[in-house]
């Protein structure tokens, strides 16, 4: 697997561009599922909704499950069926986005939920992760990045930024209460490898460089990120208020 668009892309807005080593054309690194990936979009801005629909239609790997503009319609659609990927605009009115993410992740635990947001700061992204999202896409992503990120997600990876990595490190440092953290080291809740990955990401080192440093594949690195997100979401769901206050979220 030679250099591809995914190698040096920690950012969720990766653009197809030649890397140092080679200039291979953009192609997804991972194997495609046999059938088309069913995607549902919840977006209240009609222009952006159309934009997303067009982006998905342009790619043969995706099929549009539903495109709705409010949370109520989304719930109705989810009752009738289960898409593979749910895209939710975090900017839905009345915090409808976050609530929808929470409900959907509970009712459809195996569905990939990605939030579409303008800002990827702590409040937006980590809040969404805790509610059950598995990744995020910046709203101003170019079409190629947009679909690439969804495919990366389906393949098992999650997008992350240095800031988010730093925040995750400090969150997990606060740790669960003593009776649970007996045999955990500095970052109770995180495995040492996961802590290492987060630390490297926080320093701005790209996925490819991390993979080289740790002598693993880049896919492994992004999978670690997905697992870390899941842990955060589990924490938040399982012992909701108490854990959140312990980790300094409240």
């Amino acid at each position: 697997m030679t250099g591809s668009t995914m190698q040096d892309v920690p950012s969720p807005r990766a653009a197809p561009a030649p890397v140092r080593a080679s200039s291979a054309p953009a192609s997804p690194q991972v194997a495609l599922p046999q059938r088309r990936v069913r995607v549902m979009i919840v977006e209240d801005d009609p222009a952006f909704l159309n934009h997303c629909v067009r982006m998905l239609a342009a790619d043969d790997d995706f099929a549009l499950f539903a495109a709705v503009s409010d949370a109520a319609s989304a719930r109705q659609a989810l009752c009738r069926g289960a898409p593979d990927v749910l895209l939710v605009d975090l900017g839905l009115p009345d915090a409808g986005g976050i609530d929808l993410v929470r409900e959907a992740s509970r009712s459809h635990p195996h569905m990939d939920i990605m939030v579409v947001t303008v800002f990827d700061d702590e409040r937006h992204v980590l809040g969404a992760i805790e509610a059950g999202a598995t990744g995020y896409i910046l709203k101003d992503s170019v079409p190629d990045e947009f679909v690439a990120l969804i495919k990366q997600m389906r393949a098992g990876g999650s997008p992350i930024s240095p800031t988010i990595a730093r925040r995750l490190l400090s969150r997990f440092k606060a740790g669960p209460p003593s009776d649970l953290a007996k045999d955990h080291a500095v970052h109770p809740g995180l495995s040492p490898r996961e802590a290492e990955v987060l630390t490297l990401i926080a320093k701005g080192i790209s996925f490819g460089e991390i993979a080289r440093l740790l002598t693993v594949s880049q896919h492994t690195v992004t999978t670690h990120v997905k697992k870390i997100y899941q842990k955060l979401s589990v924490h938040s769901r399982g012992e909701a208020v108490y854990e959140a206050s312990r980790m300094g979220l409240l």
Partner: protein
Amino acid sequence: MAWAFAIFATVANGAGPVARHEAADFLLSDSPLPPPATSGWQPAPLPDDWEVSRPGVHGFGWYRVRLSLAESPEHPYAVLVSALRTTGSVYVNGTYVGRSGPLDSPERALRPQLVAIPPSLLREGANDLYLRLHAMPRWPGVLSAIRFGDESELRREYERQLLWRVTGPQMVGVFSLALGLGMLALGRQRRSEPEYGWFGTAALAFAAFVGSFFVRTAPGVDVVVSVLAETGLALSIVALILFALRYAGWRRHRSEAILWAYLAATPFLVYLGEVGDGTWIADNWRSASQLATSVPALLLVAGAFRRKTARDAMVAASASAVAFTSLVEPLFRLPSDLPPWSPYAWLVMELVVGGVLVASFVRSLNASERLNIELAASVARKRAELALNHQRVHEMERRQAAVLEERNRIMRDMHDGIGAQLVSTLSLVQHGGLSTGEVADALRDCLDDLRLTIDSLEPAGDDLAPVLGNLRHRLEGRLRRSGLALEWNVADVPPIAGLSPQNVLHVLRILQEAITNVLKHANARTIRVESAVDESARRVLIRVEDDGVGFRPGHAGRGLANMRRRAQLIGATIEIVPSPRGTLVRLALPID
């Protein structure tokens, strides 16, 4: 018969060396020598008060006592009387032995008198003892029982009587004077409590009354002394009544005018009584005074029943003792052997009331002291509270100022950063120089810049590496789109003290400006970002190097000026080294 009676009395009483004679023969006579037995002596019981036995009579009177001695004595004998008014001359068996009492300046007090008898004058068997009493006008004669016996024994008795009848009351008088003055002084300090002043007045008036008993004056002046003395007594009673009223808590009342009327009337009525006008009121005015002493006692007893404290009970009891002695003493009439009681009753009352009043005074002193201390403590507490409040207000003001400063910083940065970006994009769009894709890119750059500003709001601690990492993350997209290859060699950098959000933003903006310059002007293929620590280990170096066309040294744009300005603000140095083969921008940050 009288003789026999007298002898019998003598024999009955005269068993030991001291004989007490409670009867004698009496003859009113001006004779300078003992009148003979045939003169018409009448028996008279002793004590004899002329005011009772022969009112209105004054002049000379003779008393005769028959003594019987077993043998002629070897030691001196003496005659002792407890009370005698005014002068007495003693004759034994016809011989003049001695005189007692003042001649012309009588004293109101009734002193005991002792006259010594040389033993040579006494014979075995019957002896005649004569006593010539001079009763001056306005001074009714008084003679108590006559004691006759061994001089040393009688002297002892005399001393005892002197102590109780004369010295004691004198001491009480002095004590009353001192107490009165003391109470008046206290009363001056406690103007809201008039009982001090009234009791002091009562004590002083009583001191004057007692003192009058021991004053010897010329015959004419003694009327004045009497008037003053009785007025003093009346004043002491009035003051005592007012004390009782105030002590029990009664306020001034119209009816108190009665007291002042009584006091005002006293001198006139006493004068009338003295000069012998004979009005019934004048003669009995003294009795009225004596009755009046019961008033304060009753008032205090009533007050004690009301308040039921031990203190009030003691005060009431002592005042009752005074009233009791005043009322009862006259019944026993003066010339008895018993000492006067009322001075001692007054002494007790003065001690009790004085003690109570002084204790009350001390208590109020202590209370006011305590109050002052509490007040001072309260003031100190309030002051501390005030200081704390001031501190809090200060703190709040400081925090508000900090918030304001931060807001200003953000606004400035947004103006400098995204504001400038949007403006330049707008101008490009307006001049029609951009394709749609280029406009989209420019707007994306604006969003990235906004995200960069938001990133810099979070405190970075003192670690620069994540800050640089985040910068890379934000700029990478742009670099990739323009086909620029990025070499990122940022290693672990040592902690930098004082890396506030402001400073982080300045570093980011400096580096962003450097990288943007490369993007826009350098026409480069590669850009390298490195971090290192300089040799002196006191500075962190960040290098941005490209392999482009460089720029001419004189061509310094506004961007470079901004970079230098920001570097200066954070205390860093910046070096820009252009060369035909590329440009190097080196930023040196002091570690501390």
